[in-house]
């Protein structure tokens, strides 16, 4: 335990509609990733690695998967006597018509921030998968002139998503405004655009002051918008993150982020850096590779059994790939089974899916087939139905 210099807020209310049906019963933050993790493991680990022990999690509408995964926060050393994980329940937007609920919205933040006794607060979501050094961010902030520091990454103009939020930077490299990346000028030096990672660092007392001011005004402005407003009225320091980062905002970006992990360089950058990624631990047996197994370029979780062929795929815990089955360019989540002679290509199988013997299921890189949690496809006609729908 150390003295608490920083606390953190993880806001799991992130847009998830474009990720349906994978987000039918979970927020973006608990989407499984890279054969082992949930997206929220990345901010939680970044926080833990910066010796932060007090974290407030603002829960999204479907919060059960968050509670099940985070629990006491032990996996991230967050269950100490002076820190802890504090969760704040979801409140529907319509409920903010009621002034008492608006008051409570700010009270939740204020109570947490005051109790944390911290000097600084780090604010993040979970959909920007990265391995950020929050201690370095703090040092940068302490050496910078503005009350807020915002984090960005440089994305080559060619590959930048035109709709994604980017920074408008001034000559001193300070953030003066936000805009869709397509409306932000390319930086000529390296042909990149500064894409926002929606992570911020500020003094705790500054944020308390800010929230109290809005609370007293009676207006309802959510924290992320509030920080936006503050930055656009004044300006913010811009901290560049240079490691691997993927923004998970729809099915193709989710698929691509997982496939990225089959690139050794990206895999090591994200998962084998000095800053370990922690997650809830499970007791599973080793994964068994049968005599006839044929596995190349794949990630596998423990507890699996592989009798068939795997190429360029990401398998989570307890996946069973039967004899003569082929799994190519696919993501197969925990507890799923692929039957004898089945052929699965460009498919995302959520937890507990079953693809029966000899079933052919072939999507494309741009539009992978998604099987929602617990889908069972026993024969080809059932497969066709899924493809139609």
């Amino acid at each position, binding site marked *: 335990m150390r003295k608490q210099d920083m606390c953190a807020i993880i806001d799991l209310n992130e847009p998830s509609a474009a990720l349906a049906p994978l987000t039918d019963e979970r927020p973006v933050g608990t989407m499984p990733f*890279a*054969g*082992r993790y949930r997206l929220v493991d990345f901010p939680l680990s970044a926080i833990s690695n910066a010796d932060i022990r007090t974290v407030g999690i603002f829960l999204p509408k479907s919060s059960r998967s968050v509670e099940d995964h985070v629990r006491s926060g032990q*996996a991230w050393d967050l269950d100490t006597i002076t820190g802890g994980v504090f969760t704040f329940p979801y409140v529907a937007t319509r409920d903010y018509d009621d002034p008492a609920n608006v008051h409570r919205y700010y009270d939740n933040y204020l109570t947490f921030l005051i109790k944390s006794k911290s000097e600084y607060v780090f604010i993040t979501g979970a959909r920007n998968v990265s391995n950020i050094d929050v201690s370095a961010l703090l040092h940068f902030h302490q050496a910078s002139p503005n009350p807020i520091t915002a984090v960005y990454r440089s994305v080559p103009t060619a590959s930048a998503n035109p709709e994604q939020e980017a920074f408008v930077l001034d000559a001193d490299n300070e953030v003066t405004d936000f805009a869709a990346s397509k409306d932000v000028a390319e930086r000529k030096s390296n042909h990149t655009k500064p894409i926002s990672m929606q992570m911020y660092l500020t003094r705790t007392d500054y944020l308390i002051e800010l929230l109290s001011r809005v609370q007293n005004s009676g207006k309802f402005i959510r924290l992320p918008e509030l920080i936006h407003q503050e930055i656009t009225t004044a300006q913010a320091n811009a901290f560049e993150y240079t490691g691997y980062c993927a923004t998970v905002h729809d099915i193709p970006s989710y698929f691509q982020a997982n496939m990225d992990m089959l690139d*050794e360089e990206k*895999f090591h950058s994200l*998962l*084998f850096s000095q800053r*370990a*990624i*922690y*997650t*809830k*631990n499970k*007791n*599973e*047996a*080793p*994964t*068994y*590779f*049968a*005599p*006839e*197994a044929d*596995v*190349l*370029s*794949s*990630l*596998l*979780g*423990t*507890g699996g059994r592989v009798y068939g062929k*795997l190429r360029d795929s*990401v*398998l*989570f815990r307890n996946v069973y790939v039967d004899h003569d089955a082929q799994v190519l360019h696919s993501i197969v989540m925990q507890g799923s089974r692929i039957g004898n002679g089945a052929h699965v290509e460009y498919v995302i199988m959520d937890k507990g899916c079953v693809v029966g013997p000899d079933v052919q299921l072939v999507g494309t890189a741009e539009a992978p087939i998604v099987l929602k949690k617990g889908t069972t496809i026993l024969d080809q006609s059932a497969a066709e139905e899924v493809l139609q729908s």
Partner: protein
Amino acid sequence: MLAMILAGGQGTRLGKLTRFTAKPAVPFGGRYRIIDFALSNCSNSGVNTVGVVTQYQPLELNAHIQNGASWGLAEKNAGVTVLQPYASSEGEKWFLGTAHAIYQNIAYIDLYSPKYVLILSGDHIYKMDYEAMLAYHKAQHASLTVGVLPVTMQEATRFGIMNTDETNRIIQFEEKPKHPKSNLASMGIYIFNWQTLKKYLVDSYSTDGRMEDFGKDVIPAYLSHNEPTYAYAFHGYWKDVGTIQSLWQANMEFLEPDNPLDIDDRSWRIYSRNDALPPMFVTSTAKVHRSMIVDGCYVAGEVDHSILSQNVKVGTGSVIRDSMIMPNAVIGKNVLIDHAIVGERAVIGDGGQVVGTPDDIAVVGFQEVLGRMEEDD
């Protein structure tokens, strides 16, 4: 019932593998350490208080066991306690034998006032329900129940053999008999009525002090005093992994899909303390067959009929065959490993060869470094 796991021995027959660690902390089966089997059996049997007696290189064992939470054994008024030698106002307490180790820890056992004490060894691979054995012990009104394994008459010459009457009462104990009269081999698993055992131990150490070992001293004394002593037969997979050969053999058996240990059975899980590691990465140059691999591994070479434990790296062009690789070992490029056990954190440099035979398993020790990696790595 309280359990005492005797995890004390140096395990010199495991040679280089136990130079810096106690035998029960030796890795097994890719994701386990040997003591996980006894601890998980306790947890699954509802035995919530466990003393682990050790006096040899305890650091790794301590770090592994911690407070027992990994096995569900960290409850209030229960838990796992590692018991090492200590001094008291009567002098220093070193452990001289299995029974003596219990004698030295009477104060610990009495903290929990158990009616029964279960004595276990920390170096056996098996799944056993101690609650069922206790039910048998109670039903027989036994003072001592000894867990026994039916073996072939030929094997019986290598074990301590219990000769029983028709009620399973033990009437004679013979250590490695030339002409065995029974095939019931002692597994080194005992349930004692605690007050009786304590009386025998205290009496002995206040007089001749000869009660050092359970097999040699305590069982003969029980028999000669007509204490009701019964044999409880265990039918299932059981393996003593006290030698390099048997450790390798047990790992190879573990690889068999129909291994009777049935590690995948979720109603009797074997728990362990694991770090959260990235998933295993099988690259485009790998070949993996008849093998078990766990998280944190990186495989760019060929792995055939072998076990890779956590965080093992295998470089391109390397071949690993009929071998067991312990956690955090690093295997370079173009290495050949055949019929071998490679210890924790060992490093096998590029082009290295570690080749044994089925009868003479090659061993690379804990943190041992053979050869070196090429510059470009």
